[in-house]
């Protein structure tokens, strides 16, 4: 009698375990389908996604300022409006001062590209490369290598400057960003509340915690990275100005922005300066100085700036960082590379919170 009872109990327990396993499987498949659908939407509406991501970045950056003004007694709508008026005036003033310099540099770059003689600029490098690579022995090998290096340099420079020019031409499309940003800041809390409202009661508290944690993590990461990029950009502009590199403002700004991409960023930042320097002079010394300057900037960034301004984000394995940056690049280009790490850290927070939720809330019981 006791044996049969025990058997029955064990069968019931097995059934319960199988039932739970199916539930976990169902949830996992749903989650995978959801992520897949999200990626499809992002790729399909690429332009719109980029505009929204950029608007969200600006909104996260400005949110603490809105909170500060609210603490001073202003309503959220008025605080947002005030920030936009002040920011608009500042940007207008900045453009008035800097626009001649920026347009001058962009015009110079486009004329330089249109002239078609970019390859000729490497003419004097032919002899230098042959001399420096003489240790390789065979003249054919040296010639081949020289041609390949020149072709790669030309291709890289053309690609980079064309990208920069296309970014400038896309500025008109970016005019919509302030509008999206304004509503994201003003109505952000209401949007979050509406999102929470749609969540079933059983997942409600867990979702609330999840949204709050991801929001905070993303905000800290973005604000830290933006300040870091700004400071690295300023340092790069100063260094390139001192080294008398052409388009120093432009290349320095790119270096600052590129710094937001881990591992690849500092290289992406330094290479344009080296390439431009190669076209400016046939001496190797400026390249050495550029390398020294960028190494020093990286040291300052890693030792002084990053630890202070970049908030502690989720620790991600370096290999995973490289993989997600490459995936981001495939999906959304440079912007994808920029948002790859914060997106991954957010996904890690979500996974951790969902696991925590499954362990601590009776979610599976209620399915």
């Amino acid at each position, binding site marked *: 009698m006791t044996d049969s009872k025990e058997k029955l109990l064990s069968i019931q327990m097995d059934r319960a375990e199988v039932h739970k396993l199916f539930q976990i499987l169902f949830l996992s498949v749903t989650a995978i389908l959801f992520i897949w659908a999200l990626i499809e939407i992002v790729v399909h509406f690429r332009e719109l996604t980029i505009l929204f991501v950029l608007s969200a970045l600006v909104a996260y950056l400005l949110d603490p300022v809105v909170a500060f003004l609210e603490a001073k007694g202003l309503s959220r709508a008025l605080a947002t409006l005030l920030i936009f008026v002040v920011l608009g005036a500042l940007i207008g003033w900045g453009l008035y001062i800097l626009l001649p310099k920026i347009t001058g540099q962009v015009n110079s770059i486009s004329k330089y590209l249109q002239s078609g003689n970019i390859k000729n600029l490497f003419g004097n490098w032919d002899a230098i490369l042959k001399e420096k690579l003489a240790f390789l022995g065979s003249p054919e090998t040296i010639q081949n290598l020289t041609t390949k290096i020149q072709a790669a340099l030309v291709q890289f420079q053309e690609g980079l400057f064309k990208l920069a020019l296309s970014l400038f031409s896309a500025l008109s499309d970016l005019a919509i960003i302030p509008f999206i940003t304004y509503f994201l800041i003003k109505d952000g809390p209401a949007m979050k509340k509406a999102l929470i409202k749609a969540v079933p009661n059983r997942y409600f508290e867990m979702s609330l915690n999840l949204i709050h944690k991801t929001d905070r993590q993303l905000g800290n990461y973005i604000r830290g990275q933006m300040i870091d990029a700004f400071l690295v950009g300023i340092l790069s502009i100063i260094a390139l100005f001192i080294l008398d590199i052409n388009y120093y403002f432009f290349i320095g700004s790119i270096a600052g922005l590129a710094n937001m991409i881990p591992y690849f960023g500092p290289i992406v930042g330094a290479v344009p300066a080296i390439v431009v320097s190669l076209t400016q002079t046939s001496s190797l010394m400026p390249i050495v100085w550029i390398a020294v300057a960028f190494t020093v900037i990286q040291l300052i960034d890693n030792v002084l700036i990053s630890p202070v301004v970049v908030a502690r984000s989720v620790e991600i394995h370096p290999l995973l960082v490289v993989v997600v940056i490459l995936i981001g690049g495939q999906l959304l280009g440079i912007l994808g590379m920029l948002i790859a790490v914060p997106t991954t850290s957010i996904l890690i927070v979500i996974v951790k919170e969902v696991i925590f939720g499954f362990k601590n809330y*009776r979610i599976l019981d209620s399915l």
Partner: protein
Amino acid sequence: MHPMWSNIFKESGNKGENLYQILSRVPIFEELSKRELREFIRISHKRTYKPGEIIFWKGEPGVGMYIVQHGEVTVFSGENPQNPDIVFATLSEGDFFGELALLDDAPRSASVAAKEATELIGIFRPDLFSLFERKPALGVKVLLKLAQLVGERLKLTNQALEECKQNEGK
């Protein structure tokens, strides 16, 4: 006002008024002005529960407090809300529970289920702390009231413990 418009605006207006009244009756918020209460209404979440539906189980991490707007809830221990081991309390309109979760995420000390169709107003720690960052003076007021409430409950618990010891001695 035209009946059509008054009909449209009546519901939201009444609900807003109702929320002010309900919140002002909760000890933590009782000394707040209407303007200050509006801040809490902005961060509050309205949830609707069916009869017998679980609001939270004992042991789950606490995220915030609930105020009963309509209906009744049962605070109980055990696995079945229909047949609980112990019923600690039945709470109705204007009552609140789970307020200690506003301070930390310690596990819930009892389970709570809706006894009938119930509407609750939830106020949660993350929203509350964000509000306090924006309005620190309001934060001091509310946290002081919360501390007083916890202190009073501690005194009552101590008294009950003393009474138990005395009864044991007899």
